[in-house]
């Protein structure tokens, strides 16, 4: 027996022991499997960025055939429903103030006359900017409706210089859930994996069994791998269940390779589980460990992974920070597998970072762990 040699026998003893801990604790086991699905279900429905019908108020000062025709273009587009008509600006203001309308369309007098005389007619669109996201989208739609109206007016006279026809790839209907669900799976799994292992080392410190373990010839690497093995299995199952839910409950197509999905999941899990182990070696109480695990995983994953907020739009400093957010790479790769199905080489950069993250965190956890009490 060489002094510092790795022992498969010891590792196997540890793996078996950890599995027994898990199956003897049905509550934690149920949580490990149900939590990701419940979170996915709740967030999947809560976070949807599609705006279906915008409430529109119309204040038509012209009351001509042309103005009516123009205003009708809004509900006809399918994006607006006219909820009220106003007879003065006070009425418009009241509708926006009370939130009964997202958007108000004001058609000035002489709208029809201006059009007839070939002058450009002006209209005013007022938007409730307190929800900037909705307002921006609403204004975009309004512009589109107006554009279509002017094009129709000009049709007989001039041809359009540029006929702009848009086609969106990968997600042709721009349904936000198509990109939210894959990202969400990545974010939720980031939090779950770290949480799973964050308790395992601190639990042994709390119960006193760690004192016994570190007095044995066991090597930290054996200890860590033994602790990660059963949670790795749980993690793989969690990802598969989540993907199944994405496909069957949320109707997200899975276009990429299933094997590739498994491989990436494995890489991701090694990093995530190592992070939990690292947290657990720093915090010796279970309470602190679980809180720390949530803080270092969930928040960064939610805000800095590019899952909801585009990394390209972040300040430089934050963009730099996102490089150490593991979820960023998993979000990217999962979106790719779900929606694009491009070959692994296209996300090679993300894969490299996922791998680096796993190795680095595992190494730090190993370096931090001491087989001593103080």
């Amino acid at each position: 027996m060489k002094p510092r040699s790795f022992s498969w026998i010891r590792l196997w003893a540890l793996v078996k022991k950890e599995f027994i801990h898990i199956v003897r604790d049905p509550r934690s086991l149920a949580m490990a499997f149900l939590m990701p699905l419940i979170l996915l279900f709740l967030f999947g429905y809560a976070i949807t960025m599609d705006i279906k019908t915008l409430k529109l108020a119309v204040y038509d000062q012209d009351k001509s055939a042309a103005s009516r025709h123009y205003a009708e273009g809004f509900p006809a587009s399918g994006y607006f429903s006219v909820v009220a008509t106003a007879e003065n600006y006070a009425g418009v203001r009241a509708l926006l103030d009370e939130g009964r309308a997202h958007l108000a369309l004001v058609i000035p007098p002489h709208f029809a006359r201006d059009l007839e005389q070939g002058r450009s007619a002006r209209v005013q669109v007022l938007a409730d900017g307190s929800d900037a996201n909705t307002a921006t989208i609403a204004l975009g739609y309004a512009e589109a409706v107006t554009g279509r109206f002017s094009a129709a007016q000009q049709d007989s006279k001039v041809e359009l210089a540029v006929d702009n026809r848009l086609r969106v790839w990968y997600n042709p209907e721009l349904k936000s859930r198509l990109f939210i669900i894959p990202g969400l799976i990545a974010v939720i799994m980031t939090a779950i994996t770290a949480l799973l292992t964050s308790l395992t080392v601190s639990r042994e410190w709390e119960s006193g069994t760690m004192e016994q373990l570190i007095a044995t010839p066991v090597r930290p690497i054996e200890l860590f791998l033994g602790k990660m093995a059963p949670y790795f299995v749980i993690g793989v199952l969690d990802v598969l269940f989540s993907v199944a839910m994405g496909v069957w409950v949320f109707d997200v197509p899975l276009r990429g390779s299933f094997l590739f999905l498994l491989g990436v999941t494995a890489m991701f899990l090694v990093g995530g589980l190592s992070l939990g182990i690292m947290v657990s070696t720093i915090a010796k109480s279970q309470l602190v460990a679980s809180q720390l695990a949530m803080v270092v995983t969930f928040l960064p994953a939610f805000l800095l992974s590019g899952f909801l907020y585009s990394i390209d739009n972040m300040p430089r400093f934050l963009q730099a920070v996102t490089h150490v957010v593991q979820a960023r790479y998993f979000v990217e790769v999962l979106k790719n597998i779900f929606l694009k199905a491009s070959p692994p080489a296209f996300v090679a950069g993300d894969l490299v970072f996922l791998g680096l993250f796993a190795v680095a965190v595992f190494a730090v956890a190993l370096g931090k762990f001491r087989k001593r009490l103080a």
Partner: protein
Amino acid sequence: MSTDHAVEVRDLTRRFGDFVAVDRVSLNVETGQVFGFLGPNGAGKSTTIRMLCGLLLPSSGAGRVAGFEIMTESETIKRHIRYMSQKFSLYDDLSVEENIDFFAGIYNVPRARRRERKDWVLDMAGLADKRDSLTRSLAGGWKQRLALGCAVLHEPPILFLDEPTSGVDPLSRRQFWDLIAQMAQRGTTVFVTTHYMEEAEYCDELALISRGRMIARGKPAELKNAIPEDILEIRVERQSEALEQLEDSGLVKEVALFGDTLHAVVEDAEAASAAVGDFLAGRGLAATAVTRVRPSMEDVFVSLVELEDRRSREGAPA
């Protein structure tokens, strides 16, 4: 360094901040001995044993355990020793057999011998018919024997036991010490801490520790002769009243409750026994018996701590 010493340390010291938990402890433990480390709770026993097992790095001092340096070779030491911590530390949610299997794996017990060793442990601990019970459900004495069994699965050369009998009923404690004696017969060196003074009798060699300092060491019989004073056992009705009166009487150096009697430390038993009897009778506390007894380990301990205190008071600058 001689090789027949399983443990050999000099000036072992451990500080936690300003607090000196272990203060310049030096000791040798011969191979094959049962070495008892005696002292009250908080005396520094656990800290010492943890340093010997490589779980705590000493603040200063040097030494060897199983022939390896405690400062630099703690991981090698861990392969030659077994340690049973003070807190019961097997896995509660594993069955008796699963715990044994786990430690057999951790200690690399050869597969061929596992079955035999497991049966031996189950038999030794009296757990043969409870092998499938969850460890959580076992009574204290059984748990301790199982923990000992897991520790000695592979017949280690040195066994460190930290308060193995703490919180266990007297009969189980007795059985446990029988097991320790068996281990020693097979050639295992046993280093055991306890705060039960009467358990000193089971040890080949003793060290007494108080407030981090080793105050005496030797064989149990030697230590009992080490105190120059005699011990009087006083049987009396109202013990606490008699205790107060005697403390102020000037007749005894030290007096303490000892079970349902009082033990008094006196210079000369012959002279003092009559004086004490008269003194108590004069205060209406007539003693039914005043007899000279062999000092118990507790008497020795109390008297040695007293001596040590006096020395350090005299030695300390005013």
